[in-house]
Protein backbone atom coordinates (compact mmCIF):
# COMPACT_ATOMS: atom_id res chain seq x y z
CA UNK A 1 0.00 0.00 0.00
CA UNK A 2 2.61 2.46 0.98
CA UNK A 3 4.96 1.22 -1.65
CA UNK A 4 4.84 1.35 -5.34
CA UNK A 5 7.38 0.99 -8.04
CA UNK A 6 7.11 4.60 -8.96
CA UNK A 7 7.98 5.71 -5.48
CA UNK A 8 11.39 4.34 -6.03
CA UNK A 9 12.36 6.67 -8.79
CA UNK A 10 15.33 8.65 -7.64
CA UNK A 11 13.68 11.87 -8.70
CA UNK A 12 11.98 11.76 -5.36
CA UNK A 13 15.19 13.22 -4.16
CA UNK A 14 15.50 16.23 -6.35
CA UNK A 15 14.97 18.30 -3.31
CA UNK A 16 16.64 17.83 -0.01
CA UNK A 17 13.85 16.66 2.18
CA UNK A 18 15.06 18.32 5.28
CA UNK A 19 17.79 15.79 5.84
CA UNK A 20 18.81 17.28 9.13
CA UNK A 21 15.58 16.26 10.73
CA UNK A 22 16.05 12.73 9.51
CA UNK A 23 19.36 12.63 11.17
CA UNK A 24 18.54 14.07 14.50
CA UNK A 25 15.21 12.55 15.26
CA UNK A 26 14.28 8.97 15.51
CA UNK A 27 10.59 8.67 15.58
CA UNK A 28 9.05 6.01 17.71
CA UNK A 29 7.58 3.21 15.74
CA UNK A 30 3.94 3.11 15.04
CA UNK A 31 1.82 0.14 15.53
CA UNK A 32 3.40 -2.47 13.31
CA UNK A 33 0.16 -3.42 11.65
CA UNK A 34 -0.16 0.05 10.28
CA UNK A 35 1.12 0.04 6.75
CA UNK A 36 2.00 3.69 6.99
CA UNK A 37 4.52 3.12 9.72
CA UNK A 38 8.05 3.99 8.85
CA UNK A 39 10.53 1.30 9.59
CA UNK A 40 13.85 2.25 11.03
CA UNK A 41 16.80 0.31 9.86
CA UNK A 42 20.07 -0.32 11.54
CA UNK A 43 23.10 -1.80 9.98
CA UNK A 44 25.36 -4.21 11.73
CA UNK A 45 28.91 -3.01 11.71
CA UNK A 46 30.37 -6.42 12.17
CA UNK A 47 28.32 -8.15 9.54
CA UNK A 48 30.70 -10.13 7.41
CA UNK A 49 30.30 -10.89 3.76
CA UNK A 50 28.19 -13.95 3.68
CA UNK A 51 30.86 -15.90 1.91
CA UNK A 52 33.55 -14.97 4.40
CA UNK A 53 31.65 -16.56 7.21
CA UNK A 54 32.36 -20.28 7.08
CA UNK A 55 29.83 -22.59 8.61
CA UNK A 56 30.74 -23.41 12.12
CA UNK A 57 31.03 -27.11 11.90
CA UNK A 58 32.69 -27.48 15.22
CA UNK A 59 29.67 -25.89 16.69
CA UNK A 60 29.98 -26.68 20.39
CA UNK A 61 33.27 -24.82 20.37
CA UNK A 62 32.49 -21.51 18.80
CA UNK A 63 35.32 -19.32 17.63
CA UNK A 64 36.73 -16.60 19.80
CA UNK A 65 33.99 -14.19 20.70
CA UNK A 66 33.94 -11.05 18.61
CA UNK A 67 33.72 -7.61 20.04
CA UNK A 68 30.29 -6.53 21.07
CA UNK A 69 28.53 -5.28 17.99
CA UNK A 70 27.90 -1.70 17.22
CA UNK A 71 24.92 -0.69 15.22
CA UNK A 72 24.35 2.27 13.08
CA UNK A 73 21.04 3.84 12.92
CA UNK A 74 19.46 4.89 9.76
CA UNK A 75 16.03 6.42 9.73
CA UNK A 76 14.34 6.17 6.44
CA UNK A 77 12.80 9.31 5.12
CA UNK A 78 9.61 7.70 3.97
CA UNK A 79 8.03 4.60 2.66
CA UNK A 80 9.67 5.17 -0.69
CA UNK A 81 12.77 3.75 0.87
CA UNK A 82 12.30 0.08 0.74
CA UNK A 83 14.68 -2.75 0.60
CA UNK A 84 13.39 -4.95 -2.14
CA UNK A 85 15.83 -3.67 -4.66
CA UNK A 86 18.55 -6.06 -3.89
CA UNK A 87 19.69 -7.44 -7.19
CA UNK A 88 22.44 -9.47 -5.65
CA UNK A 89 21.03 -10.82 -2.47
CA UNK A 90 23.38 -12.68 -0.18
CA UNK A 91 22.55 -16.18 0.82
CA UNK A 92 20.19 -14.67 3.32
CA UNK A 93 18.76 -11.25 3.27
CA UNK A 94 16.31 -9.37 5.29
CA UNK A 95 13.51 -8.68 2.98
CA UNK A 96 10.59 -7.03 4.52
CA UNK A 97 9.15 -3.74 5.16
CA UNK A 98 7.42 -4.15 8.41
CA UNK A 99 4.15 -5.94 8.22
CA UNK A 100 2.77 -4.61 5.03
CA UNK A 101 -0.02 -6.67 3.68
CA UNK A 102 0.21 -5.57 0.13
CA UNK A 103 1.32 -8.81 -1.37
CA UNK A 104 4.71 -7.52 -2.29
CA UNK A 105 6.65 -10.31 -0.80
CA UNK A 106 9.28 -11.60 -3.13
CA UNK A 107 8.55 -9.31 -6.01
CA UNK A 108 11.65 -8.01 -7.66
CA UNK A 109 11.72 -4.74 -9.53
CA UNK A 110 12.02 -4.93 -13.26
CA UNK A 111 15.57 -5.06 -14.55
CA UNK A 112 17.22 -1.79 -15.29
CA UNK A 113 16.99 -0.67 -18.85
CA UNK A 114 20.38 0.28 -20.10
CA UNK A 115 19.04 2.57 -22.76
CA UNK A 116 17.60 4.95 -20.23
CA UNK A 117 18.49 8.42 -21.41
CA UNK A 118 20.95 10.18 -19.23
CA UNK A 119 19.13 12.62 -17.03
CA UNK A 120 20.70 15.12 -14.68
CA UNK A 121 22.03 13.29 -11.69
CA UNK A 122 19.41 13.60 -9.01
CA UNK A 123 20.09 14.90 -5.60
CA UNK A 124 20.85 12.20 -3.11
CA UNK A 125 21.10 12.52 0.59
CA UNK A 126 24.51 12.06 2.05
CA UNK A 127 24.21 11.58 5.72
CA UNK A 128 26.18 10.42 8.69
CA UNK A 129 25.30 7.27 10.53
CA UNK A 130 24.44 7.55 14.18
CA UNK A 131 25.44 4.82 16.55
CA UNK A 132 23.05 3.09 18.85
CA UNK A 133 24.06 0.61 21.47
CA UNK A 134 22.70 -2.84 21.67
CA UNK A 135 23.26 -4.75 24.88
CA UNK A 136 22.35 -8.22 23.66
CA UNK A 137 23.14 -9.80 20.33
CA UNK A 138 22.17 -13.25 19.19
CA UNK A 139 24.51 -14.48 16.45
CA UNK A 140 21.98 -15.32 13.84
CA UNK A 141 24.10 -17.97 12.15
CA UNK A 142 24.40 -19.96 15.37
CA UNK A 143 20.74 -20.67 15.99
CA UNK A 144 20.14 -24.40 15.97
CA UNK A 145 17.28 -26.70 16.76
CA UNK A 146 18.65 -29.75 18.54
CA UNK A 147 17.25 -32.97 19.90
CA UNK A 148 16.79 -33.18 23.64
CA UNK A 149 18.75 -36.22 24.78
CA UNK A 150 16.48 -36.69 27.75
CA UNK A 151 13.25 -36.24 25.89
CA UNK A 152 13.48 -37.27 22.29
CA UNK A 153 10.25 -35.61 21.27
CA UNK A 154 11.26 -32.19 22.48
CA UNK A 155 13.48 -30.00 20.36
CA UNK A 156 15.69 -27.43 22.00
CA UNK A 157 16.91 -24.13 20.64
CA UNK A 158 20.58 -23.35 21.05
CA UNK A 159 22.50 -20.27 20.03
CA UNK A 160 25.50 -18.11 20.76
CA UNK A 161 25.03 -14.62 22.12
CA UNK A 162 26.91 -11.59 23.31
CA UNK A 163 25.48 -9.89 26.35
CA UNK A 164 26.83 -6.77 28.00
CA UNK A 165 24.29 -7.09 30.80
CA UNK A 166 22.32 -9.86 32.43
CA UNK A 167 19.08 -10.68 30.72
CA UNK A 168 16.85 -13.37 29.40
CA UNK A 169 16.08 -15.33 26.28
CA UNK A 170 12.49 -16.03 25.43
CA UNK A 171 11.72 -18.60 22.79
CA UNK A 172 8.27 -18.38 21.27
CA UNK A 173 6.89 -20.60 18.55
CA UNK A 174 4.40 -18.88 16.29
CA UNK A 175 4.74 -15.48 17.86
CA UNK A 176 2.72 -12.57 16.62
CA UNK A 177 4.26 -9.15 16.73
CA UNK A 178 2.07 -6.49 18.25
CA UNK A 179 2.42 -2.90 19.31
CA UNK A 180 5.88 -1.69 20.31
CA UNK A 181 7.74 -4.92 19.79
CA UNK A 182 5.46 -7.03 21.90
CA UNK A 183 5.20 -10.68 20.98
CA UNK A 184 2.38 -13.04 21.76
CA UNK A 185 2.27 -16.77 21.15
CA UNK A 186 -0.44 -17.57 18.65
CA UNK A 187 -1.28 -20.86 20.29
CA UNK A 188 -2.10 -20.84 23.99
CA UNK A 189 0.14 -23.68 25.02
CA UNK A 190 2.75 -23.07 27.72
CA UNK A 191 5.38 -24.92 25.73
CA UNK A 192 5.08 -22.37 22.96
CA UNK A 193 6.85 -19.87 25.16
CA UNK A 194 9.96 -20.58 27.19
CA UNK A 195 11.92 -17.95 29.04
CA UNK A 196 15.41 -18.51 30.40
CA UNK A 197 17.70 -16.01 32.13
CA UNK A 198 21.34 -15.55 31.19
CA UNK A 199 24.28 -13.71 32.69
CA UNK A 200 26.33 -11.18 30.86
CA UNK A 201 29.20 -12.43 28.79
CA UNK A 202 30.46 -12.35 25.22
CA UNK A 203 30.27 -15.30 22.89
CA UNK A 204 28.37 -17.40 25.39
CA UNK A 205 26.51 -20.47 24.33
CA UNK A 206 22.89 -20.70 25.26
CA UNK A 207 20.73 -23.77 25.23
CA UNK A 208 17.12 -24.13 26.19
CA UNK A 209 16.87 -26.36 29.30
CA UNK A 210 16.15 -30.01 28.72
CA UNK A 211 12.50 -30.88 29.01
CA UNK A 212 11.21 -27.53 27.87
CA UNK A 213 11.33 -28.34 24.18
CA UNK A 214 8.53 -28.52 21.68
CA UNK A 215 7.65 -31.44 19.43
CA UNK A 216 7.69 -29.77 16.04
CA UNK A 217 6.33 -32.87 14.38
CA UNK A 218 3.01 -31.62 15.62
CA UNK A 219 3.08 -28.84 13.05
CA UNK A 220 2.74 -28.85 9.31
CA UNK A 221 6.08 -28.30 7.65
CA UNK A 222 4.37 -25.80 5.44
CA UNK A 223 3.37 -23.68 8.43
CA UNK A 224 6.85 -23.86 9.92
CA UNK A 225 8.65 -22.88 6.78
CA UNK A 226 7.23 -19.42 6.24
CA UNK A 227 5.96 -16.39 8.09
CA UNK A 228 2.33 -15.37 7.96
CA UNK A 229 1.45 -13.43 4.81
CA UNK A 230 1.67 -10.13 6.64
CA UNK A 231 4.94 -11.20 8.27
CA UNK A 232 3.64 -10.46 11.72
CA UNK A 233 3.75 -14.11 12.80
CA UNK A 234 6.97 -16.09 12.55
CA UNK A 235 7.26 -19.79 13.37
CA UNK A 236 10.18 -19.11 15.69
CA UNK A 237 10.86 -15.89 17.53
CA UNK A 238 13.75 -15.46 19.92
CA UNK A 239 13.63 -12.47 22.21
CA UNK A 240 16.94 -11.59 23.77
CA UNK A 241 16.17 -9.06 26.46
CA UNK A 242 18.68 -6.90 28.24
CA UNK A 243 17.02 -7.04 31.58
CA UNK A 244 16.20 -9.60 34.18
CA UNK A 245 13.04 -11.51 33.51
CA UNK A 246 9.95 -10.19 35.16
CA UNK A 247 7.48 -12.69 36.53
CA UNK A 248 6.14 -14.40 33.49
CA UNK A 249 2.53 -13.98 32.68
CA UNK A 250 0.56 -14.12 29.51
CA UNK A 251 -0.78 -10.69 30.12
CA UNK A 252 2.61 -9.16 30.09
CA UNK A 253 3.08 -10.15 26.51
CA UNK A 254 -0.03 -8.38 25.45
CA UNK A 255 1.31 -5.09 26.65
CA UNK A 256 3.59 -2.84 24.68
CA UNK A 257 7.21 -3.35 25.42
CA UNK A 258 8.52 -0.77 27.89
CA UNK A 259 10.94 1.67 26.34
CA UNK A 260 13.48 0.83 28.99
CA UNK A 261 13.56 -2.84 28.16
CA UNK A 262 16.07 -3.07 25.36
CA UNK A 263 15.90 -6.22 23.32
CA UNK A 264 16.97 -7.92 20.17
CA UNK A 265 14.37 -10.01 18.43
CA UNK A 266 15.20 -12.72 15.92
CA UNK A 267 12.44 -13.95 13.65
CA UNK A 268 13.04 -17.25 11.94
CA UNK A 269 11.39 -19.94 9.91
CA UNK A 270 11.99 -23.63 10.41
CA UNK A 271 12.93 -25.96 7.61
CA UNK A 272 13.96 -29.58 7.32
CA UNK A 273 17.40 -30.23 5.93
CA UNK A 274 18.24 -33.08 3.59
CA UNK A 275 18.91 -35.34 6.55
CA UNK A 276 15.39 -34.69 7.84
CA UNK A 277 16.46 -32.58 10.82
CA UNK A 278 14.83 -29.29 11.65
CA UNK A 279 16.87 -26.16 11.20
CA UNK A 280 16.15 -22.53 11.86
CA UNK A 281 16.66 -19.94 9.18
CA UNK A 282 16.73 -16.34 10.33
CA UNK A 283 14.59 -13.99 8.28
CA UNK A 284 14.76 -10.80 10.26
CA UNK A 285 16.33 -9.28 13.32
CA UNK A 286 14.83 -6.36 15.15
CA UNK A 287 16.31 -4.11 17.80
CA UNK A 288 14.22 -2.43 20.43
CA UNK A 289 16.38 0.32 21.89
CA UNK A 290 15.09 3.15 24.04
CA UNK A 291 11.59 2.70 22.79
CA UNK A 292 12.42 2.66 19.09
CA UNK A 293 12.06 -0.34 16.82
CA UNK A 294 14.81 -0.88 14.28
CA UNK A 295 15.16 -3.53 11.66
CA UNK A 296 18.64 -4.88 11.40
CA UNK A 297 20.25 -5.00 7.98
CA UNK A 298 23.59 -6.06 6.75
CA UNK A 299 25.85 -3.85 4.79
CA UNK A 300 27.84 -5.62 2.15
CA UNK A 301 31.51 -4.97 2.46
CA UNK A 302 31.52 -3.38 5.88
CA UNK A 303 33.01 -6.42 7.59
CA UNK A 304 36.21 -5.99 5.70
CA UNK A 305 36.54 -2.36 6.61
CA UNK A 306 35.82 -2.79 10.29
CA UNK A 307 37.98 -5.74 11.17
CA UNK A 308 41.13 -3.92 12.08
CA UNK A 309 42.73 -0.63 11.32
CA UNK A 310 43.10 0.29 7.71
CA UNK A 311 45.93 -1.41 5.97
CA UNK A 312 46.97 0.16 2.72
CA UNK A 313 47.68 -3.14 1.05
CA UNK A 314 44.37 -4.86 1.62
CA UNK A 315 42.13 -4.45 -1.41
CA UNK A 316 39.04 -5.41 0.62
CA UNK A 317 39.15 -2.33 2.80
CA UNK A 318 39.94 0.37 0.34
CA UNK A 319 37.57 2.60 -1.56
CA UNK A 320 36.92 0.99 -4.93
CA UNK A 321 37.31 4.31 -6.68
CA UNK A 322 40.49 5.91 -5.35
CA UNK A 323 41.91 2.65 -3.96
CA UNK A 324 43.67 4.80 -1.40
CA UNK A 325 41.30 5.74 1.38
CA UNK A 326 39.42 3.30 3.60
CA UNK A 327 35.84 2.88 2.51
CA UNK A 328 33.36 4.51 4.84
CA UNK A 329 30.31 5.23 2.72
CA UNK A 330 27.52 2.85 1.84
CA UNK A 331 25.04 3.18 -0.98
CA UNK A 332 21.34 2.84 -0.32
CA UNK A 333 19.12 1.04 -1.02
CA UNK A 334 21.53 -1.64 -2.26
CA UNK A 335 23.72 -1.42 0.87
CA UNK A 336 27.05 -1.70 -0.84
CA UNK A 337 29.76 -0.20 1.32
CA UNK A 338 32.38 0.51 -1.27
CA UNK A 339 33.62 4.09 -1.27
CA UNK A 340 35.30 6.74 0.80
CA UNK A 341 33.22 9.82 1.44
CA UNK A 342 35.26 12.00 -0.92
CA UNK A 343 34.85 9.64 -3.85
CA UNK A 344 31.18 9.21 -3.01
CA UNK A 345 30.69 12.95 -3.31
CA UNK A 346 32.59 12.95 -6.56
CA UNK A 347 30.67 9.98 -7.90
CA UNK A 348 27.26 11.40 -7.22
CA UNK A 349 28.06 14.42 -9.35
CA UNK A 350 28.59 12.14 -12.31
CA UNK A 351 26.33 9.17 -11.98
CA UNK A 352 23.50 7.85 -9.90
CA UNK A 353 24.53 4.23 -10.16
CA UNK A 354 26.15 2.15 -7.47
CA UNK A 355 29.68 1.20 -8.56
CA UNK A 356 29.13 -2.37 -7.43
CA UNK A 357 25.68 -3.24 -8.77
CA UNK A 358 24.73 -0.25 -10.97
CA UNK A 359 21.46 0.09 -9.16
CA UNK A 360 20.26 3.69 -8.75
CA UNK A 361 21.65 5.42 -5.72
CA UNK A 362 18.99 6.90 -3.52
CA UNK A 363 21.10 7.84 -0.58
CA UNK A 364 24.63 7.68 0.70
CA UNK A 365 25.39 6.97 4.29
CA UNK A 366 28.75 7.63 5.86
CA UNK A 367 29.72 5.15 8.52
CA UNK A 368 32.82 5.81 10.56
CA UNK A 369 33.61 2.35 11.69
CA UNK A 370 36.88 2.80 13.44
CA UNK A 371 36.19 6.01 15.26
CA UNK A 372 34.92 5.07 18.66
CA UNK A 373 33.27 7.91 20.49
CA UNK A 374 32.95 6.91 24.07
Amino acid at each position, binding site marked *: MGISLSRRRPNNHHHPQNPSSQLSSSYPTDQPSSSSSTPNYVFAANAPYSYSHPPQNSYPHPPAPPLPPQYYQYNTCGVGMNNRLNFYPPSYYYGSQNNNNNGWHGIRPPPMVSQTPVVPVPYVDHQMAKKIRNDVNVHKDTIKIEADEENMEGLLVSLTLDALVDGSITIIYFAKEGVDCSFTPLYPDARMLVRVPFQKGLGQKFRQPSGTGVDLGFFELDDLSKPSPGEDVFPLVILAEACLPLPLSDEQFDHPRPATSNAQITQAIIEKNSAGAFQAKVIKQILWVDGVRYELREIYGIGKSSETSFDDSDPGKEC*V*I*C*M*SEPKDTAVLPCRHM*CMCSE*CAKELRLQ*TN*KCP*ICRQPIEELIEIRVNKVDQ
Partner: protein
Amino acid sequence: MANSNLPRRIIKETQRLLSEPAPGISASPSEENMRYFNVMILGPSQSPYEGGVFKLELFLPEEYPMAAPKLGRICLDILKDKWSPALQIRTVLLSIQALLSAPNPDDPLSENIAKHWKANETEAVETAKEWTHLYASGE
Protein backbone atom coordinates in the same frame (compact mmCIF):
# COMPACT_ATOMS: atom_id res chain seq x y z
CA MET B 1 55.64 15.32 -17.28
CA ALA B 2 52.65 13.15 -17.89
CA ASN B 3 53.69 10.93 -15.01
CA SER B 4 54.14 13.59 -12.38
CA ASN B 5 50.51 13.83 -11.36
CA LEU B 6 49.45 10.24 -11.55
CA PRO B 7 46.54 9.36 -9.24
CA ARG B 8 47.32 6.94 -6.49
CA ARG B 9 44.84 4.46 -7.89
CA ILE B 10 46.70 4.18 -11.18
CA ILE B 11 50.00 3.65 -9.37
CA LYS B 12 48.42 0.95 -7.21
CA GLU B 13 46.75 -0.79 -10.10
CA THR B 14 50.02 -0.79 -12.00
CA GLN B 15 51.94 -2.20 -9.05
CA ARG B 16 49.42 -4.96 -8.57
CA LEU B 17 49.31 -5.80 -12.27
CA LEU B 18 53.08 -6.18 -12.26
CA SER B 19 53.40 -8.01 -8.96
CA GLU B 20 50.42 -10.36 -9.35
CA PRO B 21 49.66 -10.62 -13.05
CA ALA B 22 46.48 -12.45 -14.03
CA PRO B 23 47.22 -15.76 -15.78
CA GLY B 24 47.65 -15.27 -19.49
CA ILE B 25 47.62 -11.49 -19.22
CA SER B 26 50.44 -9.00 -19.06
CA ALA B 27 50.11 -5.25 -18.92
CA SER B 28 53.06 -2.93 -18.61
CA PRO B 29 52.96 0.83 -18.57
CA SER B 30 54.90 2.87 -21.03
CA GLU B 31 57.80 4.72 -19.49
CA GLU B 32 56.91 8.00 -21.17
CA ASN B 33 53.28 7.90 -20.19
CA MET B 34 52.17 5.82 -17.27
CA ARG B 35 48.57 6.06 -18.46
CA TYR B 36 49.48 4.09 -21.54
CA PHE B 37 49.80 0.32 -21.28
CA ASN B 38 51.10 -2.35 -23.60
CA VAL B 39 48.94 -5.37 -23.08
CA MET B 40 49.34 -8.98 -24.13
CA ILE B 41 46.58 -11.54 -23.74
CA LEU B 42 47.22 -15.20 -24.50
CA GLY B 43 44.52 -16.95 -26.47
CA PRO B 44 42.60 -19.09 -24.00
CA SER B 45 43.18 -22.82 -24.24
CA GLN B 46 40.40 -24.74 -26.02
CA SER B 47 39.44 -21.65 -27.93
CA PRO B 48 40.24 -21.04 -31.60
CA TYR B 49 42.69 -18.42 -30.36
CA GLU B 50 44.81 -20.90 -28.39
CA GLY B 51 48.49 -20.38 -29.06
CA GLY B 52 47.94 -16.78 -30.12
CA VAL B 53 49.32 -13.71 -28.42
CA PHE B 54 47.00 -10.76 -28.71
CA LYS B 55 48.51 -7.35 -28.32
CA LEU B 56 46.45 -4.43 -27.19
CA GLU B 57 46.99 -0.83 -26.29
CA LEU B 58 45.19 0.49 -23.29
CA PHE B 59 44.94 4.11 -22.33
CA LEU B 60 43.57 5.57 -19.12
CA PRO B 61 41.85 8.87 -19.89
CA GLU B 62 42.05 11.84 -17.56
CA GLU B 63 38.62 11.00 -16.12
CA TYR B 64 39.60 7.43 -15.26
CA PRO B 65 38.23 5.69 -13.18
CA MET B 66 35.02 7.66 -13.64
CA ALA B 67 35.39 6.90 -17.35
CA ALA B 68 36.40 3.58 -18.89
CA PRO B 69 39.89 2.86 -20.22
CA LYS B 70 40.29 3.34 -23.97
CA LEU B 71 41.03 0.13 -25.77
CA GLY B 72 40.75 0.20 -29.51
CA ARG B 73 37.83 -1.49 -31.21
CA ILE B 74 36.38 -4.06 -28.86
CA CYS B 75 32.68 -4.57 -28.46
CA LEU B 76 32.31 -4.99 -24.73
CA ASP B 77 29.57 -3.34 -22.71
CA ILE B 78 31.75 -2.61 -19.69
CA LEU B 79 33.90 -0.40 -21.89
CA LYS B 80 30.83 1.59 -22.81
CA ASP B 81 27.59 2.14 -20.96
CA LYS B 82 28.23 -0.57 -18.39
CA TRP B 83 31.48 0.90 -17.13
CA SER B 84 31.71 1.24 -13.37
CA PRO B 85 34.56 2.86 -11.44
CA ALA B 86 34.71 -0.32 -9.37
CA LEU B 87 36.12 -2.06 -12.44
CA GLN B 88 39.85 -1.97 -13.02
CA ILE B 89 42.43 -2.55 -15.71
CA ARG B 90 42.70 -6.12 -14.47
CA THR B 91 38.97 -6.80 -14.63
CA VAL B 92 38.69 -5.24 -18.07
CA LEU B 93 41.48 -7.43 -19.41
CA LEU B 94 39.97 -10.50 -17.81
CA SER B 95 36.70 -9.65 -19.54
CA ILE B 96 38.47 -9.46 -22.88
CA GLN B 97 40.14 -12.78 -22.20
CA ALA B 98 36.72 -14.25 -21.40
CA LEU B 99 35.35 -12.81 -24.62
CA LEU B 100 38.01 -14.76 -26.52
CA SER B 101 36.79 -17.91 -24.79
CA ALA B 102 33.18 -17.16 -25.59
CA PRO B 103 32.79 -14.89 -28.60
CA ASN B 104 29.40 -13.22 -28.80
CA PRO B 105 28.19 -13.22 -32.42
CA ASP B 106 24.96 -11.57 -31.29
CA ASP B 107 26.84 -8.40 -30.44
CA PRO B 108 29.67 -8.38 -32.93
CA LEU B 109 32.26 -5.86 -33.92
CA SER B 110 32.34 -7.24 -37.44
CA GLU B 111 28.96 -8.02 -38.93
CA ASN B 112 30.41 -10.25 -41.64
CA ILE B 113 32.38 -12.45 -39.35
CA ALA B 114 29.41 -12.79 -37.02
CA LYS B 115 27.25 -13.83 -39.96
CA HIS B 116 29.82 -16.39 -40.98
CA TRP B 117 30.08 -17.63 -37.39
CA LYS B 118 26.34 -18.10 -37.08
CA ALA B 119 25.94 -19.69 -40.51
CA ASN B 120 28.81 -22.13 -40.23
CA GLU B 121 30.53 -22.16 -36.90
CA THR B 122 32.93 -24.98 -37.69
CA GLU B 123 34.25 -23.13 -40.69
CA ALA B 124 34.43 -19.83 -38.82
CA VAL B 125 36.38 -21.47 -36.01
CA GLU B 126 38.81 -22.87 -38.59
CA THR B 127 39.31 -19.39 -40.02
CA ALA B 128 39.87 -18.03 -36.51
CA LYS B 129 42.50 -20.71 -35.88
CA GLU B 130 44.22 -19.96 -39.15
CA TRP B 131 44.28 -16.26 -38.57
CA THR B 132 45.50 -16.76 -35.02
CA HIS B 133 48.39 -18.78 -36.41
CA LEU B 134 49.06 -16.29 -39.20
CA TYR B 135 48.73 -13.02 -37.33
CA ALA B 136 48.98 -13.70 -33.63
CA SER B 137 51.61 -16.35 -33.19
CA GLY B 138 53.81 -13.96 -31.30
CA GLU B 139 56.39 -13.40 -34.00
